[in-house]
C-alpha cells in the first residue's frame, strides 16, 4: 500500500515488495525486454509520444495525475495504439488545477491504483523511444512516480521536440516557443488542450512533421534525433543566438 509505504518512508526495495505477485512478474517481464532500438528508420518503427497531467508544475511536490500516449508506427498515427490512464489520487488536486486538465475530483479518486496504472503504461510502452514536448517534465514526473510505486527506474531514451524542432526549423518562431506556438505554426489542431491524449496526439503530429523534415536533412533515426538534440544543447557548437537562449 503506497500510503503505508510513504508514511513509514520505507526503502525502495521494500516498496517493490508491496506489489502483488502478478504485478512483480509484469514488471520483471518488462525489465527483461531488450533495450530500445534507436537505429531504426523513422518510418519503420514505433515511437511513443507522451503527455502527462499533474497537480501542478512543481516537479518535486506535485503529483502525476494522468498519462496520455499516442504511438507513431511506421510514420503513421494509429488510433488503436493509444493509451490513457488516470492515477488514483489520495488527495484531489486544487480546483484551479482541475479546471486546467478537466480531470475532476471523483475521477481522480476513482482512478487506477498507481502501481497498476504504471504497469499498464509499461505494458503499452514496451521499450521504444519516448517523445514529448519539454520532455524533461514528463520524464521526471513519470520516473519519480515509478520510483515511488514500482521501485524501479524507467531508464528509457526520451526525445524532446522542444529541442529537435528548433534545429529543424531554425527561423520560424522564437526558440522559447511553447507547444501551442509550434502547433499554430503547422496549423495542427488540438482536440482538447490539456487533455493528456489530445496533447499527445497533437505532439505526435508534430513528430510527423519533425520526421519529414529530418529525413530531408538525412537524419533518419531516433539516434539521429538524439545527436541533434545534444548538438543543440551545447551552445559553443551551435553558436547561434537562439541556441544560446535555449541552452
Amino acid at each position: 500500500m503506497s500510503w503505508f509505504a510513504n508514511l513509514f518512508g520505507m526503502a525502495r526495495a521494500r516498496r517493490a515488495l508491496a506489489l502483488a505477485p502478478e504485478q512483480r512478474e509484469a514488471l520483471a517481464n518488462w525489465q527483461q525486454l531488450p533495450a530500445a532500438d534507436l537505429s531504426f528508420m523513422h518510418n519503420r518503427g514505433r515511437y511513443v509520444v507522451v503527455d502527462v497531467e499533474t497537480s501542478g508544475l512543481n516537479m518535486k511536490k506535485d503529483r502525476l495525475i494522468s498519462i496520455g500516449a499516442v504511438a507513431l508506427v511506421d510514420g503513421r498515427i494509429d488510433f488503436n495504439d493509444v493509451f490513457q490512464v488516470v492515477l488514483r489520487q489520495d488527495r484531489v488536486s486544487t480546483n484551479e488545477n482541475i479546471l486546467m486538465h478537466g480531470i475532476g475530483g471523483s475521477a481522480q479518486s476513482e482512478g487506477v491504483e498507481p502501481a497498476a496504472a504504471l504497469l499498464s503504461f509499461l505494458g503499452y510502452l514496451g521499450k521504444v523511444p519516448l517523445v514529448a514536448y519539454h520532455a524533461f517534465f514528463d520524464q521526471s514526473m513519470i520516473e519519480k512516480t515509478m520510483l515511488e510505486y514500482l521501485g524501479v527506474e524507467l531508464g528509457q531514451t526520451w526525445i524532446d521536440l522542444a529541442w529537435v524542432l528548433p534545429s529543424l526549423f531554425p527561423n520560424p518562431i522564437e526558440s522559447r516557443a511553447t507547444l501551442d506556438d509550434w502547433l499554430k505554426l503547422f496549423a495542427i489542431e488540438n482536440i482538447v488542450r490539456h487533455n493528456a491524449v489530445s496533447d499527445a496526439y497533437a505532439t505526435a503530429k508534430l513528430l510527423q512533421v519533425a520526421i519529414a523534415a529530418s529525413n530531408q536533412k538525412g537524419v533518419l533515426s531516433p539516434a539521429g534525433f538524439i545527436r541533434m538534440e545534444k548538438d543543440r544543447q551545447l551552445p559553443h557548437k551551435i553558436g547561434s543566438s537562439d541556441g544560446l537562449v535555449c541552452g
Partner: protein
Amino acid sequence: MSNGATQMLVSATIEFLRFYPPFDRMEHEAMQFLGEHVKLAYYPKGSLILSPETGVVQVFRIVQRGKVLVRHTTEVSVMDPSSLTLGPGEGFSIGSVMAQRPTTSSYTALEDVFCYELMAEDFFELMQKSSVLNLFCTQYLASLLSQSRQQLQLQFSQHVAEQQTMNSPLTAIIKKVPLSVTPDTPIRKVIELMAAGSIGSMVIVDDTQQPVGIFTQSDVLKRIVLTGVNLDDPIRRVMSESPYTLPVAANAYDAVLAMTMHGVRQVLAVDEGGRLQGVISERDLFTLQRVGLRQIRQAIDAATSIDMLLHASQDVRQLSLNLLAQGVGAEQITQFISALNDTLTQRIITLNLDKHDLFGIEWAWLSFGSEGRDEQTFSTDQDNGIVYVCTDIMDREQTQLRLLDFARDVNADLDACGFPLCTGKIMASNPDLCLTLEEWEERFGHWIRTPEPQALLNATIFFDFRPLFGKFNLADRMRLTLLRRTRNNPIFLRMLADNAIRIVPPLGTFRDFVTDADPDHPGTIDLKQYGARLFIDAARIFAMAHDVTATNTVQRIKQAAPLMNISADKAAAMIDGFNFIQLMRLRHQHAEQMQGREGGNLIRPDELNEVERRILKEAFRQARKLQQRLKLDYQL
C-alpha cells in the same frame, strides 16, 4: 484500458469528417468503422504522395489538412486546366483503390498535408457496410464515365479538326497514293483494275509520274460501250487528256472551286515536280462539310435511285462519326444510326413498291436483332422479315410469293446501300421469315413451349422485333401475344435466363480481364459477345417478365427497374455500363474502318488507357450484377 483514448480520437475524426460529403450522410456504424481503421499520415509540402509509378494503390486517403495537387498524367488530358487541388475532407483516389491498380494521376502535397489513410481491404469492407459510400463511389465511377466520354470527344475532335476544315491542305485529305497506269496500258486491263479495286477513276501517268489523263467509270459507258472501241486498244485513246491538277499545298477550298468552275468531279494533286500524289473526289470534299441530320433525311426522302441512297448511307456513317466526335453518347448515336437506317430502309421499300404490286395485302416490314433494338453500330448487316395477314387460306401461297419477290429486291438494294446480306439468311426474302401473323404467333409459341437450344437462340434474335414499314398494328399484336405467353411461362424465362448467364463477364480473378476466350485472337475481348450481349440478354428477360414492350436495352432496363425494385441509381449504373461498352464498340469500329479494315468487336484491353480499363472493368461488373439478378430471380 485505452478504449477511452481510442474513442476520443475516433470521435474527433468522425466529427471532422462529418463536415464533408459523403461522410456527412454516412451511417453511424460505418463512420465508427472508418474512424477506428484510419491512420494519420503526414506529407510535407512538395512531397509526392501517389503517382502511377508507386504501383497498385493500396490505401484510400482523405485529406485532413492542407492541399493536394492532382496532375493528370495521361496523354490526353481531360481537365482544363489539367490539374486540380483537393482540400480537407476530400478523398483519393477512389477509382484506383476500387480497381486495385496504379493511379493515372500524380498527387503532390501542395502544402503540408495530413491525411487519414485507410487500407484497401478496410475500404472494401466499409463499402459493404455503407450504402451511402457505395452509392458515392458508383456515382464517382459514373463521373469517370463522362470523363472518358470527354476524352473520346477530344480525341475525335482533334481527328476531325485535322480533317474537317476547308482550309486543310490537300495532303491532309489524300488517303493513299492512287493507282495509275501508263498511256499504253490496254483498256481491258484498266477496266479490270478499276473493277477489282472498286475505283471510280484511273489516272494515266507518263514515265515521270506526271498525270497525262484520267479515265472515269462514267467514261466506260460513253466512250467504250457506246462507241464499241476495241478493249485491247491503249487507254490513251479514250482517256480525258490534261486532267485538272492542283499542287498538294492547295487547300480543300481550292479543290471545290476547281470542281465547280471546270465541271470536273476529280482533281489531281501533284507535287512540285508535277508528279501524281493523289486524287481528290467530290465525295472526299463532301465529308469535310458538316452534314446535318436534316440534310441526310431530305436526301434520303428525295432519293430516286439506289445510287443516291448509297451516298446517303455513307453520309449517315460520316455524320455518326461527327456525332461521336462531338461527344454524343453511345445511346444516342446507336439510336441515331438506327433511325437513319430506318429512313433509308423505308425509302428503299417505297422505291420498290413502285415496281411491286402489293395492293390489297396487309403487311409490315420487321427488323430484328440490333436494328430491332435501335442499337445499330457502324458494322451491321441485315436482320429483317415480313408479317402479313392472309384472310383466305387459298391465297396464302400466292401472297407469300408476291411478298418474297418484293423482299428479294429490297434485300438486294439494302445490300447495295451498305447493309450486307445476312449470312444467317435472316432476311425477309427467306420464306421462313415471310410469315402470316398466325404463323409468327405459332412460331413464337413453339419456341416458348419447347425451349430447345435453337429456340432459345431464336428468341434472342426474333423477340427483339420492331416494325419499320406497313401496318404497325400487326407487330403490336405479335408483341401482345408474345408477352402474354412469356409472362405466364416462368419455365421458359428460366431457360432463357440460364442461357443468358452461360457467358460470364470476362473479369479475371487475378488479372483484370480474361482475354483468352477466343483461341484465335489471344489478348482480345469480343465486346459484342462478352460485353453488350450480357446486358442485352438480361434486359430482354427483365422486359418479358415484366410486360415491358420496349425492345431497346436501355429502355428495357429503365422501364423494368422500378417493377423489379431496382433503384434508379443502380439502374443508371447498369445503363452507364452498357453505354460505355457500346461506345467502345463504336470507337473501335471507327478506328478499324479508318485503317481500311472491317470493323469488328475485338478490343485489346492492353491498349486501353487507365481510365478506360477501369471503366470497362466497372462496366463488366455491372453486367455481372444483371446476371446475379437473373440468378436470384430464377434460382440458378
